């Protein structure tokens, strides 16, 4: 082999080696790698991702560096793209983890806000319960006060009823003493003609018992008034009889006044022969017709007039 041949051979081998080494691929542009680089760079700029997913970013970076060194070493485009893809996905995972952390923090914030509101509501309800308990207590107190007042009142009214009953009994007794007759017009006391002399208006002394009884009664019941009505039988002239009846009622009034009854409380009417209560044909009937009736009013001083 001559020197020239040897050189050619050596040169050819060197060229072949270079060609073979270069056959793995020249460093042409790789779109996947560029995409992964851009995505990683963006994530690295995001403070939320940096803060919350440092580890995730690191794994993405490792993959990216692998892809880059493969690319620089002219590795197969397929291999570079594979590692670029891994890096791209890992960057996405890092972003998701950051989002997740943010969301979890929001969950905590929201749940503590919820607890706060619940606490507020419970505190409010407790306050309300205290308030309504206080209100109920006050109402109960008012009720018991009211009850006490009512008890006193009912006792008083019971006492009043007892007193009224006692008064009624007393009145009854006094009325019985008066020997009065209860009529629609009131209590009627009849003074018979035996208390007057025939044709005379002066009361006999025996009438004074009845008069003083009536006077006593009138003192006890100062709101009551009296109506004194005089009647005769039909003997004698009508005008005489009328005059006689009037005179007799006046003498009864005078006697009552003398016993202490104010004359303003005593009304008088002379009716003469009118309003006979029995027949004037018989002596007994005539005697019954000759009379003076004293009518005691009700408690308001009312007496129903004759018609």
């Amino acid at each position, binding site marked *: 082999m001559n020197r020239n041949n040897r050189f050619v051979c050596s040169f050819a*081998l060197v060229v072949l080696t270079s060609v*073979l080494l270069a056959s*793995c691929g020249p460093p042409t542009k790789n779109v996947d790698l560029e995409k992964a680089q851009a995505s990683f760079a963006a994530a690295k700029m995001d403070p939320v991702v940096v803060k919350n997913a440092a580890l995730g970013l690191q794994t993405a970076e490792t993959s990216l560096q692998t892809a880059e060194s493969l690319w620089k070493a002219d590795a197969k485009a397929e291999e570079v793209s594979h590692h670029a893809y891994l890096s791209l996905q890992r960057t996405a995972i890092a972003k998701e983890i950051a*989002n997740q952390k943010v*969301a979890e923090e929001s*969950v905590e914030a929201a749940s503590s806000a*919820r607890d706060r509101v619940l606490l507020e*509501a419970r505190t409010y309800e407790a306050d309300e319960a205290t308030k309504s308990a206080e209100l109920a207590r006050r109402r109960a107190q008012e009720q018991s006060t009211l009850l006490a007042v009512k008890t006193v009142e009912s006792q008083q009214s019971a006492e009043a009823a007892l007193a009224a009953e006692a008064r009624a009994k007393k009145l009854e007794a006094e009325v019985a003493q008066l020997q009065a007759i209860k009529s629609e017009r009131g209590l009627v006391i009849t003074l018979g003609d035996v208390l007057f002399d025939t044709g005379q208006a002066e009361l006999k002394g025996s009438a004074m018992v009845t008069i003083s009884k009536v006077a006593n009664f009138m003192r006890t019941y100062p709101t009551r008034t009296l109506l004194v009505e005089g009647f005769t039988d039909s003997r004698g002239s009508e005008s005489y009889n009328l005059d006689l009846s009037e005179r007799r009622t006046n003498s009864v009034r005078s006697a009552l006044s003398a016993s202490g009854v104010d004359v303003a409380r005593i009304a008088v009417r002379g009716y003469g022969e009118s309003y006979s209560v029995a027949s004037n044909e018989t002596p007994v009937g005539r005697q019954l017709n000759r009379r003076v009736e004293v009518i005691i009013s009700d408690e308001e001083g009312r007496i129903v007039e004759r018609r």
Partner: protein
Amino acid sequence: MRTLSLLNMLLLLLVAGSLVGCASKVPPPTQKLALSEAAINQAEAAGAIEFAPLEMRSSREKLAQAREAMSNEENQKALNLAEQAEVDARLAEAKARTAKAQKTVAVLQESVQTLKKEFERKANP
């Protein structure tokens, strides 16, 4: 001649080395496939089928392709596909967790609003 042939031998070795470097032997990535499958299961358990259906589909497809490549003894391809299936599954899982957390936030915030409204209504009827 001897030195020259030594140089030639070296160059030949380099040539052979570069050829081997371009098509290195890779063992079957059985473990990697198992890892990817586990990642998929974990993502599904986290609700990724509902919240990240795209990533889940991509992950499953890649896992199937990886199996096929391995049975064809294309081990490098199988390894790459398995790796991609895994990151896809992990992304799906992360997305599902984020979505769930965000959903929880929304529900909580709504309940806070409801509570506030109810409370205000009670306090100022």
